[in-house]
């Protein structure tokens, strides 16, 4: 069995099972956390709380105006790289193929050139964010191994993906193998670190929004 055969076979299956099982474990654990007892009566009915929760999911995409001058750059970079990843994963023809193969869903792909340009922007913004994390005194103190590892495991698939699209540096086989393996590493790590925000970001925003709504605070 060549390394590519492993990556496309047992490697992919294993990474998928670890990701599914690990995510189920984390989410089940979170859902079963003991809820803090609310001693005050809710200010708003259940429907209002749900509305507040849902609204928060979207309002938090745009930061408060007072914070803008300080965080415009990092929000811009983060948005670029998050939107970039979405474009790459949902727009790249080979990625749609993988999704189609596993879930029978399909949609038209974006032109390869566009996906490559977006990948370049994504890569550049990720590098900029890493520098910011390293050189920003507060952010550096707050950063743990998890942050750097999660960054690396997202960075590698993007990097190998760009190299693969150009078929430079190494052979197609080598680059494809590295690309698939790097994605599998990310899949394995996803449930256990901060990458789980892929699944939890909206959940935590909604939970917070509902809590605020209950207390009558602005969401």
């Amino acid at each position, binding site marked *: *069995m060549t390394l590519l*055969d492993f990556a*496309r076979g047992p490697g992919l299956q294993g990474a998928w099972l670890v990701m599914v099982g690990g995510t189920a474990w984390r989410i089940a654990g979170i859902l079963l956390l003991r809820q803090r007892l609310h001693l005050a009566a809710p200010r708003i009915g259940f429907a209002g709380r749900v509305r507040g929760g849902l609204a928060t999911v979207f309002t938090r995409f745009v930061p408060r105006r007072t914070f803008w001058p300080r965080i415009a750059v990092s929000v811009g970079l983060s948005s670029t790289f998050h939107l970039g990843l979405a474009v790459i994963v949902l727009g790249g*023809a080979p990625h749609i193929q993988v999704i189609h193969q596993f879930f029978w869903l399909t949609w038209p792909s974006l032109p390869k050139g566009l996906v490559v340009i977006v990948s370049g922007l994504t890569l550049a913004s990720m590098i900029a964010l890493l520098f910011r994390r390293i050189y920003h005194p507060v952010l550096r103190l707050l950063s743990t191994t998890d942050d750097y590892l999660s960054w690396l495991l997202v960075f590698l698939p993007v990097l190998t993906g760009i190299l693969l699209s150009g078929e430079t540096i190494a052979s197609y086989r080598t680059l494809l193998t590295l690309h698939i393996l790097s994605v599998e590493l990310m899949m394995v790590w996803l449930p256990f670190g901060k990458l789980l925000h892929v699944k939890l970001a909206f959940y935590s925003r909604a939970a917070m929004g509902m809590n605020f709504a209950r207390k009558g605070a602005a969401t």
Partner: protein
Amino acid sequence: MESAETLGEVLGRRGFGRRSLLKFAIAMTSSLALPPALAPVMAANLAKAKRRSVIWLSFQECTGCLETLLRSSSPSIEALIFDFVSLDYQESLMAAAGADAERTLREAVAANKGEYLLAIDGSIPVKDGGVYSMTGGRSNLGMLSEIAADAKAVLAIGTCAAYGGIPKAYPNPTGAAGVEDLISGKPIVNIPGCPPVPEVLSGVLVHFISFGHLPELDDRKRPLAYFGTTIHDQCYRRPFYDQGKFAKSFDDEGARQGWCLFELGCKGPVTHNACASLKWNGGTSFPIESGHGCIGCSEPDFWDAGSFYTSLAGGSSAGWRNTGIALGVGVAGGLAAALSGRRKST
């Protein structure tokens, strides 16, 4: 057996002048990606060379390799190759059988000790003492070790001889292996393919006879001139790949337009071979030209690399059942963790 005559004399007697030889050398240098200036040198060396003894042993194989090589050459200039070698032992082709055949082999080895080329097609079973493939009461492994010991070089012809091929495919009941896994200390050249491209064998033989050594090989012992690029690199449908134009099924508009077959499982991007440039059946076409993706038959373990029709972008799925089990185990683990957390906090 080696004759005292030089190749130039043999060809001259048969009515082939030196021009034919030079023309052959021009075609061969082109095929071997050598500088054209080497053609006259190659022609001169070939004219002076003696016929080289080739001993061909067939192990766990289907005879497809031999069929391809025999069928290919009749009208082409490569037919000359049969004047350059003396095929002293080949069980499928020789008239001798039984004890006579065994004597022929012994004599050929003795007469050309250290000078003959050993050609192998088929894989070698090593499990249970190699009992799964025997000739005249001897195991393939025993014959290979013995005959290879006195060979000048070993040619592993076809994917089975090179890497184990289909006999080695899961679950490999006979413990099949390729030549390079079993022989050491000899120059080995792999000419993989199921079957291999005949022109590659001609190129390797001619290079060896005219220059006295094997052509430049890559890290898998394949002649670089033929295996240096992938099918994808040389494919005439490559522009469609670059433009993102893919056939989605074998009978859609894209397939009719001759678009790239990547999404239909073509393994061209990871397959090293010369099909796209040399083509098959006297230059008629090659699989992609006939509308089917490359199945990667010249790569190790190609039979176990998943479906021929799953694109390289995809892979084998873990299945809904296993996914369900993982989901269940995960939820149970989360439940247990949460419960133990609650107990601790109270």
